[in-house]
């Protein structure tokens, strides 16, 4: 399987990916990890709200809402 790197924001609703890394300060990384968004986890995009609205993802059976500015700094591997 060949994986391609994408930012979370580029994933369409319904797509899955494996979290690869984060782009940002240690505080930002901690914020994501402590809510359950961690490297190596599989995430599914539930929805992406229009007009610059937030992205909702599912990790470990839990949904999390995050803004697009954060989503663009989450790098995921997607099966190509």
């Amino acid at each position, binding site marked *: 399987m060949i994986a391609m790197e994408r930012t979370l924001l580029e994933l369409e609703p319904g797509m899955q990916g494996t979290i690869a890394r984060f782009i940002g300060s240690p505080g930002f990384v901690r914020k994501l*990890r*402590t809510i359950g968004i961690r490297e190596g986890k599989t995430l599914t995009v539930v929805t992406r*709200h229009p007009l610059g609205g*937030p992205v909702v993802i599912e990790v470990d059976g839990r*949904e999390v809402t995050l*803004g*697009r500015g*954060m989503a663009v700094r989450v790098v995921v591997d997607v099966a190509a």
Partner: protein
Amino acid sequence: MKTVVLMGNPNVGKSGIFSRLTGTRVITSNYAGTTVDVSRGKLHLPDGPAGVIDAPGTYSLTPTNPAEEVAAAILGEADVVVNVVDATNLERNLYLTLETLERGVPAAVALNLWDEAGHQGIGIDVAGLEALLGVPVVPTVGLSGEGIRELVGRLGEARPSATIRPMSEEERWAAVGRITGAVQTIAHRHHTLADRVSEASIRPVTGGLIAIAVIAAAFLAVRWIGEGLIAFFFEPLFDLYTPIVMRASDLLGPGILHEILIGRLIGGEIDYVESMGLLTTGLYVPFAMILPYIVAFYLVLSILEDTGYLPRLATLADTFFHRLGMHGYGIIPVFLGFGCNVPGALATRVLETKKQRFIAATLMSLAIPCMAQIAMVFGVLGPFGLRYVVMVFATLALVYVAAGLILNRVVPGECPEIFLEIPPYRMPDLRATATKTWMRVRGFVGEAIPYLFLGILLVNLLYSVGFLDLLAAAFAPVMEAWLGLPAGAAVALLVGFLRKDLAVGMLVPLGMSPEQLVIAVTMLTIYFPCVATFVVLFRELGARGMLAAAGVMVTTALLVGGALRVILIGF
């Protein structure tokens, strides 16, 4: 006396366990950030009484908002920590557990939501976890009380962990993964109906439709329950009461005591809204006009809170709230504020930056009338036609949005984006809902009614010494020339600082047109918060913040009041 502190991630059931441990009821809801301040209670341990502290939830000991700051700070007071952990989400919760244990404080772990973990096919090797963490671990169900006795029994064994040593952040994450892998087994999960409902309610189109339906249903339910309580319970009750007060009125005869207790008779009859006596208006307004809607509102709010719908609504509203300088979670202070502005103001603590909190608090004070005031607005304006009530609320909605757009531009500071966990949908527990509604209703009765009495007493006294007429005269130019209101409305507005519901009632005897009432009632909402809210805002925003907020309020009130006057009455 020893101090036991409940620490844990948000929404894991700390407050539920606190209530079980201490018998002191505190608010629990199915969303992160219910508790934003500490609650204190007492617990009897074998070696004597201990203080128990319920802290706000936090994901780590590095806080990201004031509620989490409170939690991180309170850890310093702990002789024993009870770390409440969500058993359905062990891995995420363990980070805080390790951070806490590394501090070397005696601790025990409550594996809460044990029932849900079972339902979801999640198994945790409790003895194994206990060995790895080096502190007692007890499965609990905060909702039913299961495991609480054992938890209390094992608090004596709480001691600093012998197995967990201070480590670096990366090491801690590795340890979290290792421990979870060693003790947790997960059966494969199927996509359930609840998952599908959850997804539908958070997507833009389906979610938007569901939101409209939910809000409409909530509004209708409040009205329907409120009106039902009035028609079938409180009105009949007061019909029985009227002959008794009339007797009392005859017995008392005219005089100062009659003024205070019964008030003015209108056409020889008691007018429960206008008479302004302690035993007439003082009882009727709070019990027959406001209380029914308070009960109805809190019942509906409890259901919205406990199902876990609010974070979904926050997600849907995020794009909109972002334009107003907040993010979607700004909807929480709005919802709570409709009940009472005091918890609404406190709830701004779930927002991360000063700018967001300032905007959320200011907009709430400007444009979110509390239920007591709303009930009075319906009671006073409703008889003239629903369209007047709609005018008031449409104006306030406009003010909320316009002021938000402007404040977002002019207030310096950052607006971080929404970052929010969506709790699972839960069926509201009947008893929990009833208890929560009762707690809040009792809060209203205990706090609002003494103030109402005080207000009525004060108004009577100040009228009789002529002070209020003096005041009315002083404000007459603004009232008459700018707002098109009778001078007496100034008195009502000032009383609004004490109780806004009472102030609305005081507008009635002024014999204003419905248009004037619309202006007065809208002013009353915007111009300043009531004293109880003011005190909290002052604490939350600081003196400078409060001053700025007050400036916004008074300016907005004058502008909106002037505009309404031109539109509704003309020059």
